[in-house]
């Protein structure tokens, strides 16, 4: 039986790696990948706590909802990235600082 703290520490590591990717990367796709890592860490926490909830299965149900939300956010984010690339010919977020054409 793996204890709860093990799961929490692993998910904290994955979350902080995702945070680093969001803060440091200069490529919008890599920022999206960092957000995906953070969502995965959150899902791991959901699932680890859901093991102690046999009556409601709340953790596992909301882990599935979180997976669906992540898929939706990736679809919308990639559509935005492709549009931004068509406009600015770059996906470096430091070069995208103008609202007008």
């Amino acid at each position: 039986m793996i204890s709860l703290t093990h799961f929490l520490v692993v998910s904290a590591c994955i979350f902080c790696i995702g945070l680093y990717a969001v803060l440091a990367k200069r490529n919008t796709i890599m920022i999206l990948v960092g957000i995906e890592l953070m969502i995965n860490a959150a899902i791991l926490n959901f699932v680890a706590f859901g093991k102690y909830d046999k009556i409601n299965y709340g953790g596992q149900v909301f882990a599935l909802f979180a997976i669906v939300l992540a898929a939706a956010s990736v679809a919308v984010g990639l559509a935005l990235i492709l549009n931004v690339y068509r406009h600015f010919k770059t996906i470096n977020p430091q070069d995208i600082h103008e609202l007008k054409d």
Partner: protein
Amino acid sequence: MTIESLLFYAFACMAIVSALLLVNIRNTARALFLLFIVLFAMAGLYLFALADFIAITQILVYVGGVLILLIFAFMLSNKELLNDLQSTSKHFISLPNWQALVLAFAFLGVMVYSYISWSQHMPQWIAQSEAKGSIILPTDNNIKALGFKFMTQYVLPFEIISVFLMMALIGAAHVSRKEDDI
């Protein structure tokens, strides 16, 4: 050390090491394929929390859908790759990232410290369910129970998430259309 904890540590090391490699590698295509390994290892970790259906959904949705979408977007905008290679600094540790590194490590320190100090006094409901024996066991039929829960207790969030997913996909298709045809 049982074989279960050995496998758990193996999966955890695989996830963390390939995630670290993912954020350090320059080549975006290789980083996306490393994300593949991270997602598989995370699915393996879900299995140790006895969430078999979540693990399979993770492989289906993330590895089958999200990753293919990310690779598509990378290939459609890969002029960035050349710029990224040219602006690579020659230093071993690239200095402009140190703020992000400090922030991430501070966050990690706070989280790990709070988890370890928290593990002495767990919340009440965990101790109660441990005492009553209502923990999910490896012999339980999880998928059947999840199906019942989705259609009875959680039917409202389920419908809301379905409508939300449809809205998001229609929005994505609308945003990424060509400009001239409306």
